[in-house]
């Protein structure tokens, strides 16, 4: 059964130096507050896994938490580059970053295979492209019936998954709605998981019979962090703070302005900051 913890206790429970972690969110419900807490706790040598690493991974990479990145698209969505990610890959700052690069289809299938307790995923992909030349994890199997050769990737089985969801009930069941991405698969594929939520409710109440729910016994810990996805969005709660995504381009371009921003907005702040961000966005919405 999921345990209800504070954000800091939750991060301590699931993250340790050297572990692999998937902080998922397909441009929705991105666990920013959890990423900031990981930065405050000074985790090191992490393998960061995510299909669409964006601002929060840029911040973690820039602060030197990551040894390796497993990903399929690393950018500031709708804006441009991730400058901290680029600085790490192009210049090895603050230290070199190993990358394991896939396509979205490969990553999505790899999470799916992890959730299904399979050692690998099979899909039709990677035809005629260069990624298999630089990623030795991409292999193939032959269909025993047709002889067709299909691409494979190893299943993703992260040590930890961290996601942000809309609601948890008192039993620790977790509700997601809207663009649900690969969060369910990431949690089911991981050894342990932390879910930050906008709200804890007595009961989900009447709901669709097929609602996307993670039962309590599939989740390690839940932390109540309203606004925890800010500046990304939470369906029905608040919109994306697009001005911040744009501002991040300038903040992150320079190493000093990046560090100053992190100091003022992460290291010197706590999880409560996010409640206020969300409130602002809700009013603006």
């Amino acid at each position, binding site marked *: 059964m999921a345990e209800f913890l504070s954000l800091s206790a939750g991060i301590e429970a699931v993250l340790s130096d050297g572990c692999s972690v998937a902080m998922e969110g397909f441009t929705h419900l991105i666990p920013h507050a959890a990423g900031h807490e990981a930065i405050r706790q000074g985790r090191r040598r992490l393998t960061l896994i995510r299909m669409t690493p964006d601002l929060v991974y840029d911040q973690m990479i820039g602060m030197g938490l990551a040894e390796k990145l497993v990903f399929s698209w690393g950018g500031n969505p709708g804006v441009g580059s991730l400058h901290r990610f680029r600085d790490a890959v192009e210049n090895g700052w603050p230290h070199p970053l190993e990358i394991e690069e896939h396509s979205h289809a490969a990553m999505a*299938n790899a999470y799916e295979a992890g959730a299904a307790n399979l050692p690998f995923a099979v899909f*039709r992909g990677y035809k005629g492209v*260069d990624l298999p030349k630089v990623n030795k994890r991409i292999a193939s199997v032959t269909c025993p019936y047709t002889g067709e050769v299909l691409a494979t990737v190893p299943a993703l089985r992260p040590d930890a998954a961290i996601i942000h969801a809309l609601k948890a009930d008192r039993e620790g069941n977790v509700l997601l709605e809207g663009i649900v991405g690969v969060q369910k698969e990431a949690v089911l594929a991981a050894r342990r998981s932390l879910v930050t939520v906008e709200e804890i409710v007595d009961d989900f109440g009447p709901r669709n019979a097929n609602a996307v729910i993670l039962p309590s016994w599939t989740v390690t810990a839940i932390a109540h962090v309203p606004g925890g996805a800010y500046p990304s969005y939470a369906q029905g709660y608040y919109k994306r703070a697009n001005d911040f995504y744009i501002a991040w381009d300038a903040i992150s371009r320079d190493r000093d302005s990046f560090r100053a921003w992190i100091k003022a907005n992460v290291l010197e702040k706590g999880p409560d900051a996010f409640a206020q961000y969300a409130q602002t966005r809700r009013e603006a919405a």
Partner: protein
Amino acid sequence: MSIMATPSEMMTIAAARLLTDEDVCFVGIGAPSAACNLARLTHAPKITLIYESGTLSTRPSVLPLSIGDGELCDTALTTVSVPEMFRYWLQGGRITIGFLGGAQIDRFANLNTTVVGPYDAPKVRLPGGGGAPEIAIHCREIFITMAMGSRAFVETLPFITSFGHGTGKGDRAALGLTSRGPTKVITDLCVLEPDPETAELTVVSLHPGVTRDQVQAGCGWRLRFATELAETPAATATELSVLRDLHLRTRQAHGVAA
């Protein structure tokens, strides 16, 4: 006294015209999103739009900031998980038109969005392929939208992120692909199509007021022009006003230029 479209608008409008009510489009953010929604708001009201974030048959009233924009979900018929999107919908062969763009393209419509310079010691690390490698092979055909420029239209790609026509006609079939691959490249200056014999991109239509020299200046390889080179019909007043209204609504909704 017609209103003139900007080159960027002309690119979007030329792309929109290629779409029909019967199409099921896998839409990317930016020009493809504008083109698909312009088509939907003009001549193709029943077109089906799918964004890779999982939204099926979505009808946004403003353009999304990202593929995860709440507007896409709120106006969708339904939203599926990302694994399902890539398995049942893209790989499932249910998409007629996939839109792609990239940092670089070569004469056979292969694309690079991964890296400039060596992969292990990149000069510029680009975002990577995302959905593109599989979009390029599973959609019935591919439309590419890209602004021209000699650093974008290059002789040789440092990295092939998504497959177009390889090194020429027959390469797709040799890989066992049955989809058509890139059939149109819609730019801010012209429209190109793969030559039926060689699969090399050939300029088939120049946008109004654009010369052959201008197009060649925006391309790093020696361009071929179709024998019967057409002029892209000018943007109509309706096309322009619907597109500009869409962009205006988008700016008002997001508080930014879209």
